[in-house]
């Protein structure tokens, strides 16, 4: 899959939503951002709020197109990428 050039939909839940101040946004990352881990690194330098949201990477979980994903999971144009803390339902 090519690096991401088309918009991604990004969702934030729980304290990631609060820290980024964003529930949902459409972003077009620069060339070179092709995985979840690369996306996190790019997002984290956008603002202090984003930096705070992603400061502890071990506390951040991700889903790509509604399936749990890892830092190495590749992302492509049009994907829905969600970031959230470890789940606490049930």
């Amino acid at each position, binding site marked *: 899959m090519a690096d991401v050039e088309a918009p991604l939909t990004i*969702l934030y*839940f*729980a*304290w990631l939503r609060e820290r980024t101040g964003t529930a949902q946004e459409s972003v077009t990352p620069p060339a070179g951002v092709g995985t979840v881990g690369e996306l996190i690194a790019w997002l984290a330098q956008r603002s202090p709020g984003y930096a705070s949201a992603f400061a502890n990477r071990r506390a951040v979980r991700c*889903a790509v197109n*509604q399936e*749990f994903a890892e830092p190495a999971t590749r992302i492509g144009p049009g994907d*829905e990428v*969600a970031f*959230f*803390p*470890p*789940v*606490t*339902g*049930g």
Partner: protein
Amino acid sequence: MTRIRVQSENFDIGAEFAALTAERTDIGGIGCFVGTVRGPAAAMTLEHYPAMTERAIAGIVREAERRWSLLGCTVIHRYGRLLAGENIVLVLAAAAHRQAALDATAFLIDWLKTKAPFWKKEESVDGAEAWVEARVEDDAAAARW
């Protein structure tokens, strides 16, 4: 028959048992778990990821059905603001024999706790709010299956 619902309103436990077992004579046991909002929290707000929630629960139920011979399964999970004492989640698993019903029930709630996209924010009686942190014990409980 599998029933999955994600809803803000409460559920009727008796009605869900009745719906699961109606007209059935092949069931020998039904396991059930109900999770409730426990004090000292005054209330809890459950956030979830609507586009993912039902499919994540469906995947967990499919895994239970793969592991045990289930004759029916119901999972209802609430979201929104719930007061102390209110129901959060209902799991029902029916099988010919009790061990399958009980094991599947425990499996379903263990996996829901660690694999369904819900997040709880607690409100204490003085109004302070805090996100509930995931518990190491929950990961261990989910991993034992």
